[in-house]
């Protein structure tokens, strides 16, 4: 038995996926389409953005929507020097947990900045909307430093 050569071939695994949202996720995405951010009130009163369907502590169904601001504060971040092909940005950027004004629980999105040193925990950021909003997470193109 001779040593086998290695046979490689690139392939793509994927499907289009059409997701039904249900009322809670749908409400948030509808907000995005209208360039508004909406959260939901947890059983303990904390405002969660994007809204969760079920409370992590009590498992109860959540339904009390709360409007939140499109500005917020960076809670923590990661600086991506070399964006990956799948990433939403082509230039170096930050992933951040962002606590929006009126929210108690941070959300994750990307932050555009020229360099890592421009980004700090506690920095204020503002949502940058896509030219066309369709009701999808990428309607927020990114956040930018205020």
């Amino acid at each position, binding site marked *: 038995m001779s040593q086998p050569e290695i*046979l490689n*071939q690139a*392939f793509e*695994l*994927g*499907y*289009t*996926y*059409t*997701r*039904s*949202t*249900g009322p*809670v*996720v749908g409400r948030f995405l509808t907000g995005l389409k209208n360039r508004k951010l909406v959260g939901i009130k947890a059983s303990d009163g904390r405002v969660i953005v994007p809204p*969760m*369907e*079920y*409370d*992590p*502590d*009590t*498992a109860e*169904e959540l339904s009390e929507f709360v409007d939140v601001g499109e500005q917020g504060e960076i809670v923590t971040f990661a600086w991506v020097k070399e964006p990956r092909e799948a990433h939403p940005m082509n230039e170096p950027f930050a992933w951040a947990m962002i606590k929006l004004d009126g929210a108690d629980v941070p959300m994750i999105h990307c932050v555009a900045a020229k360099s890592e040193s421009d980004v700090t925990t506690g920095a204020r950021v503002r949502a940058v909307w896509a030219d066309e909003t369709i009701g999808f997470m990428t309607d927020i193109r990114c956040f930018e430093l205020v």
Partner: protein
Amino acid sequence: MANLAAVVGIGQTSYTTKREDVSIAGLVREAAVNALEDADLTWNDIDAVILGKAPDMFEGVIMPEVYLTDALGCNGKPMIRVHTAGSVGGSTALVAASHVQSGMFKRVLTVSFEKQSESNAMWALSNPQPFSTHLNAGAGGYFAPIIREYLRRSNAPYDAGIKVAVKDRLHGARNPLAHLQKPDITMQEVEESFMLWDPLRYLECCPSSDGACAMVIADEELAKKSPKPPAWIRGVAMRSEPTMYAGRNEVNPQAGRDCAADVYKQAGVSNPRKDFDCAEVYVPFSWYEPMWLENLGFAPEGEGWKLTMEGATSLDENGDIPWNCSGGVLSSNPIGASGMIRFAEVARQVRGDAGEHQVDGAKLALGHAYGGGAQFFAMWVVGSQKS
């Protein structure tokens, strides 16, 4: 000896081509909440969650238990995800039962689901892999040659499959949750339906459904306190064999026979046709009813089709051993949940809670699931009595 365990709550969604009104979490949640309500319990009463589904690619969510934690009230609790191909709903129920039978848990929730409409895939997940021939025409294309070999061996009449297709849809018409509602289906309609994979016609094949099924399984003490009658788990078994090996009996797989023998022994069943009042058996293609009648020992080898043709498996014909009273996989097929639906439906039967498809006085019943190339088997026997 295993500790006693019983099903004390059952919840299902209705089954349909596309559940467009809920998220994935919402779908799973619906079945789980129905099971909790059926058991008159709350999330706090649950000690662990056991989740099952078929390949993650159906929804494109990898290891979805991670995302479904909150929908299933699992924060701070153990969560386990089972995947054994098409048999997974059954295997998941068995893993859930083992949590209680081991004495390690008092009461657990088990849920299985598929929201396979999300993938928009025509024949589920048949995307080509490099270096292999692209002849994958769906599960029917795989099983049709095996069915043809069964026909050769058994000399079964050509319309035994048609009879099953009609019978299970008539059963399904009694079950408001069933995906296909065809109360007026006829032999002629099935026979005239499009021949997809000869000898399988369109109406001899299962639909593709979205849906979820859930059960609460409790130990003896808690089961006794349960408001509705428990379905006592009298036997549990699983068996696997390789997809392909020289001399493999694909028509009548040894893994199925061994699994049945194991579960019957535990439940004290010597003559399944007599001892069981009904069975829910994984029949995604009509001909698998006669094939499994033989594999599971309800009929001698080569004679399963006779029971089918006699109406022995039909509720409408007052058969002595009704199979798939809920309509079976031929009426609803959310793949990851299909096995658990079988297990849950027999529990409904022995609890006397199966509505219009109830078998009068059902006391002992077999739930069955299979997967892969008919190589993975999961079975349980449930009874209205502990022993």
